[in-house]
């Protein structure tokens, strides 16, 4: 069954869109990521113009991340204070990113820079998560469990705050800095940034996996609200029919993801996310190697 998307100006299969939304929803409920890092490339491959895929995806994430966020919020698995600080850094970073994007675009060759950066990031994050979770699993079995994060000098910088939910007493400088950098990357790559934020919160800040997901969803929710409105206002690239269909598929996925999370432990969760990120990375590499369907790509100028 086909449906015509009025802003994208193409027809798409309804069930294709619903299932993409569903998969993104599971990812979002399980890992606290928006799922944009996965759905945006799939939508583009499915024929949706890239700018519209990014804009509509942001709108979709608003709905699915709220559903997930509420689940974690009720179980008190959200560190609101940490979320707020991450949000400040994220908004500053993504604004800087938009200008950086424009600067790089004027210089030309931005597309290669983005795709190589993307692949590099996915590879590093994915491999690290996979190896770490395997090591933890081994240690857990042998009974010698080590503390996940080591208190480095960076946590001891001034402006230290007690983050009760995360069980941390660290400076606000590292979370601000991390979310700022991720904000820049997110707006350059056109994703919410959750898939980098989650590992960063676990490994760099040392938060526990359970709190990380809810807190990350909080950040993803507000970032996606801002970027939906910006995309709609500046670029007119939000297709509500597209995002509604993704949303219909997504909400069920989010609930399912949240249920799965309760059944499995933190390191298995990190291992799964690691595997998904590596798969996506391999997929993007294969896109660069396999002969393209067409060596000419047409972008319509409006």
């Amino acid at each position, binding site marked *: 069954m086909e449906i015509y998307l009025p802003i994208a100006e193409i027809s798409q299969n309804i069930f294709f869109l619903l299932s993409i939304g569903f998969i993104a929803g599971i990812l979002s409920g399980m890992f606290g990521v928006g799922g944009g890092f996965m759905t945006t490339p799939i939508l583009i491959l499915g024929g949706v113009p890239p700018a519209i895929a990014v804009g509509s995806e942001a709108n979709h994430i608003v709905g699915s991340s709220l559903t997930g966020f509420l689940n974690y919020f009720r179980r008190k698995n959200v560190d609101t204070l940490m979320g707020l600080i991450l949000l400040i850094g994220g908004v500053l970073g993504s604004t800087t990113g938009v200008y950086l994007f424009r600067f790089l675009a004027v210089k030309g060759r931005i597309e290669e820079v983005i795709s190589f950066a993307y692949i590099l990031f996915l590879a590093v994050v994915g491999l690290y998560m996979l190896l770490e979770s395997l090591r933890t699993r081994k240690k857990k079995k042998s009974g010698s469990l080590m503390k996940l994060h080591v208190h480095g000098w960076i946590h001891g910088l001034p402006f230290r705050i007690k983050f009760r939910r995360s069980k941390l007493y660290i400076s606000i400088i590292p979370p601000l800095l991390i979310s700022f950098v991720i904000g820049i990357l997110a707006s350059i790559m056109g994703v919410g940034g959750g898939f980098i934020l989650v590992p960063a919160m676990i490994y760099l800040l040392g938060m526990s996996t359970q709190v990380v997901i809810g807190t990350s969803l909080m950040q993803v929710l507000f970032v996606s609200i801002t970027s939906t409105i910006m995309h709609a206002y500046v670029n007119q690239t939000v297709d509500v029919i597209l995002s509604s269909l993704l949303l219909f598929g997504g*909400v069920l996925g989010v609930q399912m993801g949240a249920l799965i999370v309760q059944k499995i432990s933190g390191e298995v969760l990190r291992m799964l996310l690691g595997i998904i990120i590596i798969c996506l990375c391999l997929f993007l590499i294969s896109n660069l190697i396999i002969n393209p369907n067409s060596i000419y790509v047409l972008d319509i100028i409006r």
Partner: protein
Amino acid sequence: MRILLIFLTTLFVYVNNIIAKDIIMADFSKNKINIDVGFNGAKLLFFGVIDDEGDVVVSVTGPRESIKVRKKERKLGLWINTDFKTFYDVPSYYFVASTKPLDQLNANEALRINQIGIKNIRFEGAEEEVKKDRDLWKSGIIDTMIKLGRYTPEQGSINISNQRLFKTELNFSSEIIDGAYIVDTLLIKEGNVIAVKRSFINVSKYGLGEKIYTMATEKGLIYGILAVFFALVFGFTVNETIRRFNA
């Protein structure tokens, strides 16, 4: 240049209308296509009468648009974008039907002038390139358009009955954009175009799709806020529903 072109085209159509006043008469089963949310392509019947013997050629050209073309090349084993060019007035849709295959009409020059047939489509851009390179870009665009399903490489057929009545079917995929589609009907006799008739099909957005499009383009900010609001309400409702259901 463009003004001159428009002037010449107008003159061309005008002169032809005088000459062709009664030689070709044509009409559609419907000359309007509405693109609503449920749109998945359209079929139109195009028919008419010719007042002379000869071959009939019908071409349909979609609204012209500007496009940026990127070319990929393999460098060190990786496919990357190596160059880009901008082209103007590229037809967004192209289809041609004829009573005989175009190369058997013996009217290559006339077909070239009237831009009939995929290889005769003309558009502007990359003027700084030498002709050979420019032609490579152009054929790249046309091949890509065929792959996208916007241009139809196979020629449609036209049936003539009683030597006077012709009819053909025009197919539009769901990928078409809105605007005016130009339908040119040519009557060709012994390699010469003896009559031309120009008609139009109006393709426009309609219903819910049209409302969404208008709002998104004219009131972007409000549209964005509403889109966010809808997503929030939806996310909240679903969460509440499932929570009550589970409790």
